Structures are given as C-alpha cells and as structure tokens.
C-alpha cells in the first residue's frame, strides 16, 4: 500500500519532469527535467527494494546515477559550446 502510494507519487514527479521537458523553455530546463526523470525512476526502484527487501536492482541504481550525470554534462556542455561558438 505504502509502496504503491510512493510509486504513484514518483510517477507523478516523472510526469512533472516530462511536462517541463516538453515545455522548456530553456534547454537547460529540459536537461534538468531529464535528470529529475532519472532520479524519480531511481527512487521508484528504491521503493521497490524497500517493498520487497531485494537488492538485486541496487547496482542498476549506481549505473543510473552515472548515466544521468553523463547526459547532463554532455548536454549542458554542448549548450554552452554552441552558444559561445556562434
């Protein structure tokens, strides 16, 4: 029950992030939204772990953290680069 509530809430956060990704307006906003999306899925996985007591997916969370970071760095780096190049 508690897990379900939590999952739904993280789902809502994901949706909020999706909306921000869709409406922008700055590119950085979209990037940030993507970040929030990743973290909310990470959180959902953690909720599942709390619910089931299984840690199978925890290493996956580490990957998510790294990967989310990668996307943000590359995108924001690119935004700057493009702006300065023009």
């Amino acid at each position, binding site marked *: 029950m508690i897990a379900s509530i939590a999952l739904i809430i993280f789902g809502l956060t994901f*949706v909020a992030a*999706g909306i921000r990704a*869709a409406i922008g307006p700055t590119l950085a906003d979209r990037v940030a939204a*993507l970040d929030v*999306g990743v973290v909310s899925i990470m959180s959902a996985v953690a909720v599942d772990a709390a619910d089931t007591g299984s840690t199978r997916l925890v290493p996956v969370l580490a990957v998510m953290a790294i990967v989310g970071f*990668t*996307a943000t760095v590359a995108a924001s780096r690119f935004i700057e680069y493009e702006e300065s190049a023009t």
Partner: protein
Amino acid sequence: MAHLVGVVAVLSLPNPRPAFAVALAAPLASAVWAASRLGGGETDTARLDWVEGLDLAVSFRVGPLGALLAVLVSGIGVLIFVYGHGYFGGGDRRGFAATLLAFSGSMLGLVWADDVWTLFLFWEATSVTSFLLVGTKSTDSAAVTAARRALLVTVAGGLVLLAGLLVLVDVAGTATLSEMGPVTGDQATVAAVLILVGAFTKSAQLPFHVWLPGAMAAPTPVSAYLHSATMVKAGIVLIGLMHPVLGAVDIWSGLGVTVGLLTMFWGAIGALRHADAKLVLAWGTVSQLGLMTAMMSLGSGKAIFAAVSLVVAHAVFKAALFMAVGEIDIRTGSRDLRSLSGLRTSMPVAFWVMVFAGLSMAGVPPLLGFPAKEAAIEASLKESGASGDLILAGVTIGSVLTVAYTTRLVLALFSDKGGEPTEVAPFRWAAAAPSVLLSALGVVGYVLAPSVTDWVVPAAATLETTSTGYALLRWPGLDSTAFWISMGIVAGGAIIGAAAARHSSPPEPVGANNVDRLVDRTLDLAKWTTGRVQHGSLPIYLVVMALVASLAVIPFLGSIDAGQLHAWDRPLQAGMGTAVVAAAIAVAAIRSRIGAALALGVVGLGVSALFLIQGAPDLALTQLLVETVIVVGFVIGLGGLTTQFPANGFVWRSVRIGTAVLAGTAVTVALLASAEDTPSNRESLTAAAVDEGGGNNLVNVILTDLRALDTLGEVVVLVVAAMGVLALSRADTARGGGAPLSDDVRKVRR
C-alpha cells in the same frame, strides 16, 4: 555447329581483310552437304536433351524440306558473303560478317528444328541477329529506329508464338514436331491463332508488315539475304511445319489465306507507290510473302506444292534484284527512280540482272518464277465454291499488280530522264557476280524444272502427302486455264506498270509510324506511371509503406478475442504508458532539435520504467544506457543545426497524421490479435540456462549462450555502424561534393 565455329573464327580474325572469305566457309559446307541430299529421301536427326524436366531439347531433323531450305539459306548465304565483300569494299567488317554468319546459322537451325522449342530458339535468334544486322549503320537514327521496330514486332510475335507453342504442346502432348499428330478443339484453335499471328509477324503479313520496309535501312547484303531468302520465310516455313498438326483446325486456312491475300494486294500497292528502288523491292517482298502465306495455309496438296515452289523461286530472284539495286546504290549513291538516268548503258550488267530477275518475279517464261506462279494459280483454280472464286480473284489481282510494279521498277530505273546521265563508280566484280549468277539461276531453274520438281515435291510431301502428284511445268499448254490467266496477268500488269512508271507519289511509309507511335506511347505511359509511382520523395514512400502495412492488418481484425485481453498488467503500467505516449507526442511537438532529443530521452526513461514494471531489469538497464548515449549523440551531432524544424503544408501534414494514426492502429490491432496460448517452455529454458548455461540471469544466459549467434551478429552490426560513422566523418568534403547537384534541387523539390 559449323556456323558457331565460324562466328568465333571470324571474330577472332587478326586481320579484318578476309572476314567474308572465312565467313563463307561454313555456309558453303552446309550448302554442299544439303545439296547432296536434294531429291533423296533420307532423314537425319540429332537430339540434345537440355532440360528434361521441362521437356526442353535441341533436336534437328533434316529431311527433304530441310535440305531444300538449307540449300537456299546457305547457298544464297555464300553468294551474300561474296557480294558483301564487294559491297563494302574494305574496312573492318569482322563484326558484321560474324553477325551475318550467326544469322545464317540461326536460320539453318530454324529450318532444321524438330522440336517446337528448338524452333523457337532459332526463331528468336534470327530476330536478334537481324536486329543487329539492320542496325549496322548504328549512327544513323533511321536505321536504329528501323532495327528496333523490326525487333519489337518479331519478338512480340515470337512471344505470341511461344504462347501458342505452349498451348500446342499441352494439346499435342509432345514438343517434338515429328511426333505430333493432328489436333483439333478449342485449345487447338487458340494455339492455331497464336501460332499464325507469330508467323504473320515474322513474314511481314498485314498488319505486322510495317517493320519490313523500314528494315531497308540495312546495308543491301542484309536486305538481300534476310528479306529474300531467309528470315521472312521463317513464318511461311512455320505455317508449313504446322500444317500437318493444325491444318485441320477450322480457322487455320481461312485466316491464313485471307491475311495472305490482303497482304499480297497491299504490298503490291505499296510497291507501286514508292520511288526508292529498294523500298519497291521491300513492298514487293511483302506482297510475295502474302501469296506464299496464302498458299501455304490454303493447305491443299497443290497449294503446298505451289508455296514451296514460290519460296524457292522468290529466294533466287529477290536476292538477285536486291543485289542489283545495291550495286546501283553503291555505284551511283542513289536509288531514286525519279533521278537515276542513263543506267542502261552505264550499268549493263545490273540492267540485265534486273530484267531477268524481274521477269521471274513477274512470272514470265522462261524463268523459274513462271511455273511457280502457274502452280499457285492452278491451286486457286482447284478451290471450289465462292471462297475458291475469291481466292482466284485475289491471286489474280495480286499477280497483275506484281507484274505492274516489276515493270514500273525496271522501266523507271533504267529509263533516260533527259539531262546528264547519272555518274557511276567503277565496276566491282564481287558486287556483280552473285547477282548475275542468281538471275542466271532463274533461267537454269526453268530449264531444269523437272529436277527442281524432284527437289520440291518430296519437300512439299513432308508437309502434305497429297503434294506428290504435281510438277513444275515449263509449258503448261494452251489448253491450260491457268496459262491464259497468267498471260492476261502479264499483259494487264505490263500496261499498268508502264503507265505507272512516270508517276511516283512521295514515299509514305504506311503504317510504319504506328509501331513507332505505339512504342512512343508505351514509353510515355511508362514514364507517366513511373512519375506517379516512383515519386522520388522519401516521405511519400514511407506513407505508402505505412498504408500498405495498415492494409495488411485487416485480417487481424477478425482474430481479436476480448477474452484474452486485459486492461493492464499492473496499474502503474497504465500511468507510465500514458506518460510515455505523452512524451512521444512532445517529441513531435517540440520544434527545437535538442529539445526534441531531450523529450526522446524522457520517452526512453518511461520505456525503461515500463520494462521494470514488466519484470525486465536487464532491458531497463540497457534501455537507459542506450537512451542516454543517443541523447548525448544527438545533442553533439545535430545540435549545431538551425534550431527550428521547417514547417510544412496543412494537406501534407494531415496526410501524415492520418497515416500515422492508421499505422499505430494497425500495430495495436496486430498485437491484440495475437492468440496468446503460448505453449511456454520456460521451465526447460530455466533448467537449461542454470544447468548448462551456468547462470541465473536467464536473459544474459540466452544472450551469451543459448542465442549467442544473435548476439554475435548484433555486435558485428555495431562494429559496422561504428565504421560507418567514422567513414562519414572522414569523407573528404571536396570529394563528397565531387558530384555536385545543381541548384535545381530546391526548385525540383515539391
């Protein structure tokens, strides 16, 4: 076989000079061999199985008819090679000689064929080689057009023939000619019509005659050979060969005789109108072929006999006439009846050749043409009833006209038109001798008519056993009706001919344009169709494809079973699914590139979440990683482009949206229609993975072991894709721009 060797030999000649001499060897050999068999009764066969499963074989049967025709084909062939040497003078003619030789071989194969497929093989071979020969002057667009026309008509006819042969083989139960018995019935009628049409195209019968006059664009040796002795006779020979099989079919003789006589009439009219000597001969050939067709399909013993005789006589005199006109052509540079003048004195040899061969054509004694035509008239006389009268009338009128155009030709060509006589180039023996020989043969043939009869009769008898009782009569006697008709024909024709000698309407190739127009029309239609179908625009192709896929889904609609469906696996699936689709729509709605790419990232995240919900953590993990890389790659690779996507028109956008919705529906329907009574082998899979694969993560074991081959392929795909990325980035811009497209790109773009 000798011919094939000959072709190779000629092509591989180091020195072009003796091309014709070498080429001559093969037909000489076959002519001598065939001549030695004339009149004899023996029959030789040869058979080479090709595709037994399809009853395909190459088989020959050389009997009296084969020998007679082979003498004509090869004998005249020898003379043509001699003539060709004189006609062309010098230059590298290896290709021409080889092609001519190949043609000659094909023609032999055709007349010797004992199998419908062999016959068809050589039938098509003559079409193709004649195409090459007619187009010898390949830089002349008229010659090229004529060659194309000839090829199209004959090959199209060939395919009709093929269809007819297929049906015939079906009815007759065999493909071997000598094993076929007479057939009748509906299917036989179909076969008969198809085969006759095939024969008509080859033998230039109305309305397929249109290719022949145009083919005069060929060098005269070609015309003399193809359009006198050989190719155009193929249709006649075919009708003859089919007579024992299809002669009993009702429509056979009616159709053949009607078309033949009409052609005879129409060809003669054409010959009377033209001012080009060669065209006159061409139209004359059409006319003569009409007569032969009529006789051959008439099918009585006498008619077949007459037809074979005509084939022989025509081959001899028409080749001579062509050669003489060709000689005039190369020595004066003209073939125009209206301008040539004074040739009787300046070219006496050609004159006498024309006179003798012309008289033979007109059917005047003492020339071989006379008894042949007598036989034809007698055969017409033998027909009873109204149709018999009609046939007689037709043959008579046609013959009158034949005499007329012959007279006109000789008179107009050699008359003095006042003014300067036409300049004439030096005499060439090689160009003149063959025609002299042939016109002399006309006389000799008349003199030796009994011998000729001995050759013709067994040949005709192989087609129609009742042909045996007839002979070529040098002098039929004054009590012969046919004789008086003949005399009337000659007299009437001469008067008309003399009168027409002064008149020439401007040359108008009646009907020839129709084929060209048909071809052009076809090309236009093809272009139009292609323009519609192959639009050149990728988005349209994709729309078509999506619509086709949507159509393919229709049967699935009948297989959706609501009992097998459930709304969702987990409620969260519904929520996340909605989010995914919404994000996907955002991808389409966002007009900035990086923005759309980031929205794609959100879709990917959502899909990962769906994977997790579905119980597929490996997929989720991979999807997440992949998604990130793609977003990064997108941003780095394409972020530099102008930020906004171009807008497009309302209609096109509506089409796209409509297509998209249809495609999406189609995919949904397909999935919903799945039966889902999966006989699961999850247990055995799990056991196998753990015991033999040595791992608990089933997906991983499948990927690295059970289905490692797929993974192997998959990583190779990655390698290749990466090499492609590298190659594209290294592609030198200068080289890439090396094939510059014009600025019309934008204009052409819709």
